[in-house]
C-alpha cells in the first residue's frame, strides 16, 4: 500500500506543471546532445539514400540486420507502455496514477522509432505509400503503380497493425491529456503558448459531464487498445513465422513468445523511464519505492513466463530432430560470436535482473531498478538480433551463399538515432505537457485516508 502523504491541489499543480513552465539547466544540454546524436544518425541516412542499401552490411544471405532487429525491439518497448497503462486502468489499480502517462508516451515515441526503421530498411522509401490502398487516380504522376497491396502478405498486415496501434495510441494519449492541457492553458498567462494550449484543450472546463467522460473513456479505450496490443506483436512475429524458408523462424510459438518478450522489455523500459523521471524532475513525492516494488514483482512474473516461452521455443525446435534446425541451434550455441552473444543475452535478459529482483531492497531502489531494467533491454535487443541474423546466415544444403553479418557504421548510427529520438521525445514531451497527470493525482489524493488501528496508522484508499 502507498505511503501516505497528503498534498493539496495547488501543491500538486505547482509540482507537476513546473517542468512545463520552466526549462531546467540540464534540459537544453541534454536535448542538444541527443539532437547531435540524431543529426549524426540522420546524416548516415542521407548517405544511404544517396548511395543505396550497399552502405549497410545486409547482403546475401543475411538480408535483415540491425534495422529489423531495432524495429522489433522498439515495437516490443512500445507494447508494455500501453499495456501497463491499460491493465492498470482496467483494474483501477491505485498505484497506476503517476506512471500511466509516462508509459503511454514511451509507447508513442518507441512506435515512431520502430516505424522509422522500416524507412531505413527499404531501398526506395519514397515509394512507401505503395503499402496503402490509395487509388491510382490520387497519384497520377506515379505511372509505375498499377496494382493494389497484396493482403496475403505479412508485409501488408504489419503496417496495418502498427498503423492502427500508432493512431490509437495518439488518440488515447490525447483524450486523457485534455484536462491537463486545460490546466496548463490556465497556468500560462499569455502569448502564442496560451493560444496553442487553448486550441488543444478544446474549451475543457471541468464540468461533471466532462469528468465522467474522462473516467469512462480511458477504460473503454483501454479495452479496445489491449486487443490491438496483442495483435501487433503477433503480426510482427508472423513476419518471421509464416516464412517456411528459415528454420529458426517457422514456429507456432512465435506470437505468444514475441508478446511476452515485448512485455518483458517494455515494462522494463517503463521502469527505466520512471527512475529517470524521478531523478530529472525530483518527483519523489509522487513516484515512490512502492511503485518500483510493485512493478518489480510484476517483472519477476513476466520474465519467468518469457523464459518459459524461450525454453519451449527451443524444445519445439529440437524435439522433431530435423537436421537443418539442429544445425542452426548448434551454430547459435557453439559458434562464435553467437555463443558469446547468447550468453550475454541470457545473463542480461533474465539471470542477473530476475535474480536481483528477488530481493526487496533491489525492487525498492530506483537506482538498482534503473540499471537492472537497462540490462534487460540490452538482453532483449540481443534476443531479436539472435533470432534474425543466425537464422539467415545458417549454412543450408545446396546453398552457395554462406555469410555472416555485423552492422555497418551507418546502421549503428541509425540505431543510435532511434535511442536518442525516443529519449529526446519523452523529455521534450515532458517540457510541453505534464508527464504525471495532475488531475488523476488530485482525484487519488481525495480518496486517500489514514485509518488508525490501535497505535498504528495505516494508509487506505476509498473507492467510489
Amino acid at each position: 500500500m502507498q505511503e501516505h502523504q497528503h498534498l493539496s491541489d495547488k501543491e500538486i499543480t505547482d509540482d507537476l506543471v513546473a517542468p512545463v513552465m520552466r526549462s531546467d539547466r540540464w534540459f537544453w544540454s541534454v536535448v542538444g546532445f541527443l539532437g547531435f546524436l540524431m543529426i549524426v544518425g540522420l546524416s548516415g541516412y542521407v548517405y544511404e539514400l544517396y548511395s543505396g542499401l550497399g552502405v549497410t552490411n545486409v547482403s546475401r544471405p543475411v538480408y535483415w540486420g540491425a534495422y529489423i532487429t531495432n524495429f522489433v525491439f522498439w515495437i516490443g518497448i512500445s507494447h508494455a507502455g500501453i499495456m501497463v497503462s491499460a491493465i492498470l486502468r482496467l483494474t483501477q489499480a491505485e498505484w497506476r496514477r503517476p506512471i500511466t502517462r509516462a508509459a503511454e508516451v514511451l509507447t508513442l515515441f518507441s512506435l515512431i522509432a520502430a516505424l522509422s526503421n522500416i524507412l531505413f530498411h527499404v531501398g526506395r522509401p519514397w515509394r512507401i505509400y505503395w503499402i496503402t490502398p490509395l487509388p491510382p487516380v490520387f497519384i497520377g504522376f506515379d505511372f509505375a503503380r498499377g496494382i493494389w497491396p497484396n493482403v496475403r502478405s505479412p508485409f501488408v498486415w504489419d503496417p496495418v497493425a502498427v498503423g492502427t496501434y500508432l493512431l490509437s495510441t495518439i488518440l488515447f494519449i490525447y483524450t486523457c491529456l485534455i484536462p491537463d492541457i486545460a490546466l496548463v492553458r490556465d497556468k500560462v498567462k499569455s502569448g502564442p503558448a496560451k493560444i496553442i494550449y487553448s486550441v488543444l484543450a478544446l474549451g475543457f472546463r471541468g464540468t461533471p459531464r466532462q469528468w465522467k467522460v474522462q473516467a469512462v473513456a480511458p477504460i473503454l479505450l483501454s479495452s479496445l487498445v489491449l486487443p490491438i496490443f496483442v495483435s501487433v506483436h503477433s503480426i510482427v512475429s508472423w513476419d518471421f513465422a509464416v516464412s517456411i524458408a528459415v528454420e529458426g523462424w517457422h514456429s507456432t510459438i512465435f506470437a505468444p513468445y514475441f508478446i511476452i518478450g515485448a512485455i518483458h522489455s517494455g515494462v522494463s523500459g517503463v521502469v527505466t523511464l520512471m527512475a529517470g523521471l524521478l531523478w530529472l524532475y525530483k518527483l519523489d513525492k509522487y513516484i515512490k519505492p512502492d511503485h518500483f516494488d510493485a512493478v518489480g514483482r510484476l517483472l519477476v512474473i513476466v520474465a519467468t513466463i518469457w523464459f518459459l516461452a524461450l525454453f519451449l521455443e527451443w524444445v519445439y525446435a529440437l524435439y522433431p530432430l530435423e537436421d537443418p534446425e539442429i544445425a542452426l541451434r548448434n551454430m547459435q550455441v557453439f559458434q562464435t560470436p553467437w555463443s558469446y552473444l547468447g550468453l550475454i543475452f541470457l545473463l542480461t535478459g533474465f539471470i542477473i535482473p530476475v535474480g536481483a529482483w528477488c530481493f526487496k531492497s533491489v525492487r525498492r531502489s530506483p537506482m538498482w531498478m534503473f540499471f537492472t531494467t537497462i540490462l534487460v533491454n540490452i538482453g532483449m535487443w540481443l534476443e531479436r538480433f539472435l533470432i534474425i541474423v543466425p537464422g539467415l546466415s545458417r549454412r543450408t544444403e545446396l546453398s552457395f551463399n554462406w555469410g555472416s553479418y555485423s552492422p555497418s557504421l551507418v546502421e549503428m548510427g541509425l540505431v543510435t538515432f532511434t535511442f536518442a529520438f525516443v529519449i529526446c521525445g519523452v523529455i521534450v514531451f515532458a517540457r510541453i505537457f505534464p508527464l504525471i497527470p495532475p488531475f488523476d493525482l488530485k482525484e487519488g489524493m481525495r480518496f486517500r485516508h489514514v485509518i488508525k488501528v490501535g497505535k498504528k496508522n495505516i494508509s487506505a484508499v476509498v473507492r467510489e
Partner: protein
Amino acid sequence: MANNSVLGLFIDENDAGDALSALRKAKYQDNEFEIMTGSPYPHGTFGEAHPKIKLHRFPIFGAVIGFTVALIITVGTQLAYPLVTGGKPILSIPPMLVIFYEMTLLFAVIVTILGALFESRLPKIFMGAYDERIMTEGYIGVVVTVPKDRISKAEDILKKSGAESTKRGWEE
C-alpha cells in the same frame, strides 16, 4: 441564442453544494446551472444532477464501420486486380481476417474518441463565465446561465451561499 452567465467561485465543497440547493429553491432549473472543478469529484458531492452519457454505444458503431471498410478494401482491391500469387485464391479468408480485425478495432477507437468529444460537449469555442483558478488552485465554480433579467438574482444567491468572488460572462 446568447445568454448571460455568472460564475461564483467557492473554496469549500459544502458552500458550493449549498449554492446549488439555493438555486433550485429559487426556481432555477438543473440545466441552467453547472459545477466546474479542476479535478474529478465523486458524483453527487455538490448535489448536482447525475450526467447521463452513452459512450459505450460508440465503439459498436465504430466497429461496424471498420469491419465494412476492411471488407471493401480487401475484397474490392483484390477483385479490382485479380492477380493469382502462389496458387492461393484471390479472396483468401485467413489473411483478410487480419485486416478485418485491425480495421474493426481502429474505427472502434476513432468513433469512441469522437463520442467522447460529443459526450463532453467539446470543442467549446466560447468559455463563457470561467476562471483559471478552478483548474490551477482547486476552486469550485458554479456557473448560472440564464436570460439577462434573472442574472442579478443568481449572482446574489451565489454571494449569499459563500462565493469568494463572482464573475459575469455570456454563453451560447
